[in-house]
């Protein structure tokens, strides 16, 4: 793996000085990015089934310039390509989602999933090694078994730190369709997994059974009108979870009410504006991601053109709507033809819930400040990140005359998309995945 060490100062919002911490070039296309609860570890999953974990350098490191940097901590192959012989289907190894478990001892645990199988991994450190055998001498030569005059008990000696990733549990055979989400419950003992039509609830220690809590599969598949696109557990109410659908709606369910949550307790939907109705309306209203705020009061949904923030207490419309790339509305036809209209962009909150981030095309990503309603477009690309250069906000020309530094809509590269981003839970550090490259930016400490 090539690790580039680009460090630049740039400013994007007046109140922020952002510097690029690192960019990493990975072997394959990154398919998910996730910080752990403390933010000290960052996990990425890729199309090749690998998980790469980055660890933040501890403060007090004598190389002062490396403070706060993230370095590769552990790399392991989480999933392998498989073949379902009964259905004659290939099962890709691509990691769809990674979710960290709250830390329970010195080791770290995460769940990773491909389309069908969820795995629980333990990442632990080892710094001691046992030495001394009875039947072998120091050089590994065998001793004469008949000349053993005393017994030796092995002694533990310090050794170089070794990080091990071991699979602890495999949760398989519960999903007929492709898994799109996993989410750990705040009770710390269960998690849910969602596919296109069903949501299952698992106990983290039990792999041979799960409970089906949502099933929207119609008796006749020809009557199928919507699919589940994402699901998440509430951050502190262990009985509440939400799931979003391809029709742009979100259902909130209460597991206290009944064992099978087919009946939602809240239904969030924004009435459609009849004037903007078009052939693409339904496709672009499909929700690609849903995330609760850390406080648990709000949730955010991403559809093709916008990000919406909903107050859990108001089902009729979102409290805030942010346009991500409204200029694409006139391009929907060609985006439909090249399948880009089906891209699933994710979104994330910052640690204090007052800013949100989501991706776009041309390696652009967008940030919105909820208090000032200011927004910014930034670009994650190595070409524009020349050392000591200022990373300027980018602007897309939306008609009329193109100003200097503006980019015309027609010259956007739709193959360079930023689907996955993550925000450190406590600090202004963000991780942005642009195809094979992972960028980590940090608010500069003066």
């Amino acid at each position, binding site marked *: 793996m090539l690790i580039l060490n680009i460090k630049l100062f740039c400013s994007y919002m007046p109140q922020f000085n952002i510097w690029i911490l690192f960019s990493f070039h990975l072997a394959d296309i990154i398919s998910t990015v996730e910080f752990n609860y403390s933010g000290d570890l960052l996990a990425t999953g890729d199309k090749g089934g690998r998980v790469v974990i980055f660890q933040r350098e501890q403060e007090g490191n004598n190389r002062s310039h490396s403070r706060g940097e993230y370095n590769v901590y552990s790399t392991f192959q989480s999933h392998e390509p498989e073949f379902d012989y009964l259905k004659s289907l290939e099962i890709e190894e691509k990691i769809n989602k990674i979710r960290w478990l709250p830390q329970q001892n010195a080791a770290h645990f995460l769940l990773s999933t491909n389309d069908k199988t969820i795995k629980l991994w333990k990442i632990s450190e080892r710094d001691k090694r046992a030495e001394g055998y009875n039947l072998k001498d120091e050089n590994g030569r065998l001793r004469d078994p008949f000349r053993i*005059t005393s017994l030796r008990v092995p002694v533990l000696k310090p050794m170089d730190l070794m990080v091990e990733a071991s699979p602890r549990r495999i949760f398989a055979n519960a999903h007929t369709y492709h898994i799109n989400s996993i989410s750990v419950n705040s009770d710390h003992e269960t998690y849910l997994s969602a596919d296109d039509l069903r949501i299952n609830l698992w106990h983290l220690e039990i792999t041979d059974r799960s409970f089906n809590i949502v099933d929207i599969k119609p008796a006749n598949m020809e009557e199928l009108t919507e699919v589940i696109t994402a699901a998440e557990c509430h951050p502190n109410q262990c009985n509440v979870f939400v799931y979003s659908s391809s029709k742009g709606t979100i259902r909130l369910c209460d597991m206290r009410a009944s064992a099978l949550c087919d009946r939602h307790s809240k239904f969030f939907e924004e009435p459609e504006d009849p004037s903007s109705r078009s052939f693409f309306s339904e496709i672009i209203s499909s929700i690609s991601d849903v995330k609760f705020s850390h406080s648990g009061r709000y949730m955010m949904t991403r559809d093709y053109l916008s990000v919406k923030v909903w107050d859990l207490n108001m089902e009729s419309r979102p409290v805030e709507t942010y346009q991500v790339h409204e200029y694409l509305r006139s391009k929907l036809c060609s985006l439909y033809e090249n399948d880009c209209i089906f891209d699933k962009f994710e979104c994330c909150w910052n640690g204090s819930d007052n800013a949100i981030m989501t991706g776009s095309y041309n390696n652009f990503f967008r940030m919105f400040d909820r208090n000032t309603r200011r927004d910014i477009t930034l670009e994650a690309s190595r070409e524009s990140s020349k050392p000591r250069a200022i990373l300027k906000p980018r602007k897309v020309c939306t008609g009329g005359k193109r100003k200097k530094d503006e980019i015309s809509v027609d010259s956007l590269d739709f193959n360079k998309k930023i689907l996955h981003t993550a925000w450190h839970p406590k600090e202004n550090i963000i991780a942005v995945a642009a195809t094979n490259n992972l960028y980590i930016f940090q608010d500069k400490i003066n």
Partner: protein
Amino acid sequence: MSKMAGADGDDSLYPIAVLIDELRNEDVQLRLNSIKKLSTIALALGVERTRTELLPFLTDTIYDEDEVLLALAEQLGSFTVLVGGPEYVHCLLPPLESLATVEETVVRDKAVESLRKISHEHSPEDLEAHFEPLVKRLASGDWFTSRTSACGLFSVCYPRVSKSTKSEIRQHFRTLCSDDTPMVRRAAASKLGEFAKVLELEYVKSDLIPLFAALASDEQDSVRLLAVEACVSIAQLLPQEDLEKLVMPTLRQATEDKSWRVRYMVADKFSELQKAVGPEITENDLVPSFQNLLKDCEAEVRAAAANKVKEFCENLPADSRETIIMNSILPCVKELVSDTNQHVKSALASVIMGLSTILGKDNTIEHLLPLFLAQLKDECPEVRLNIISNLDCVNEVIGIRQLSQSLLPAIVELAEDAKWRVRLAIIEYMPLLAGQLGMEFFDEKLNSLCMAWLVDHVYAIREAATCNLMKLVERFGASWAQSTIVPKVLGMASDPNYLHRMTTLFCISALSEACGQEITTKQMLPIVLKMSEDQVANVRFNVAKSLQKIGPVLENSALQAEVRPVLEKLATDQDMDVKYFAQEAMTVLSLA
């Protein structure tokens, strides 16, 4: 003669040396074997080296696989003698302490179990000097794994420590009951009952009751539901007059909890609760609660409550039992018979027959019989099966004949169910039914079913049918077998389908013992011998297997004169398997 240890080395050390080296073999199985023989290693090392070398090494092996750690945690629980007796038992605390913090619940639980075990081997001084500080360390550990383990240790050291330490332990328990992580609160809630048992009654009232109330209204339902169990233990400890004030508000709240999982827990623990609170509260409070649970909007809760119907009714006070059942419980039960959920109906079907012994003959005929009959006609096979499997209760009270009119169609339908698992289940009840219905009724109505299963297209059914015949013969005797079963079984020996021919052999193997020497030698043996010339090799090697099975039942003369030549011939068969099984049979029957 044992060899002297000396410069030549001691070969008795060799096996121990291997065991020690294999403690860190790359193969988990070898490591596991070594850990399981840890006592052998310790014995060879002697108490001092065990304490100073082996235990420090084991303390740091917590990197290993769960199964190795589990075995280690278990071994250490009975290691006291090997470290030098109770005087040195505290040496075992460090390795168990590190095992009590691993993430795997089974390992942690085993470490806690061993810690509890060795706590009794500590002198009061050592308990205070070594064990109690360990409990405190765990209770204030950084990770919740250690704090959850601490919850299980309070109750073993509390009774044996000084007054001031006791108050510290109570304080620790209080802290853990309001821990930030739900895991720890759950551990505390689940140990609340056992801690209450060792606490002085005044502290139960002043300390534990408020904690219990707090846990029972925790924001997480996974915590609240554990408080229901604590309810039982606390209610057992408190004098009757305190129950109303200290326990009942919490129990009432749990019965009406917003979360079905909590209500489910109440339903699941209902019998225990009923015993713990006594007859008076049962009559005033629990009966209406039970009615509500039987009518709950969540099917899981109704099913759990339905499961408890019989036990609840049995444990009602004798003087008011019948009135309560007839007026309060039976109306709810009647509704459950036509519940929309099949799990509820089948839970009810598994206990409803038990009510007949409680209510007696007249009530059973008037009120329960219609319900039994309705359930026997239920669309769900599991419901019907559950009724049939419990027929014996009714038989004692009103006799099975009352039911036979409806029973028969139900059995026939299950016997022909499209799902083979349902057919399998009904076959298993056949011997029971045969006993209840009697030989005559059985021959007339059910015998043909039993024979039909022998030619079922699913092997598992044919196998079960064979086993069923054996049990029937055991019940009805050899002469019944000779007249009704044997001719039909033997008739299948010339069936064109080789699978059916094999069934004959399986039946013969199964029945020979129950039928006795005469029938086996005179009627069965000739057929088996004749089948040794079958075209299909599978039949031929099953002949060899059958001969091996029925050999011990045969007369010795028949064995020598008839079986031996056939087996000898089969032993030269061109088919490998036939040869193998023929030779095996000859060895077993000592004919080789």
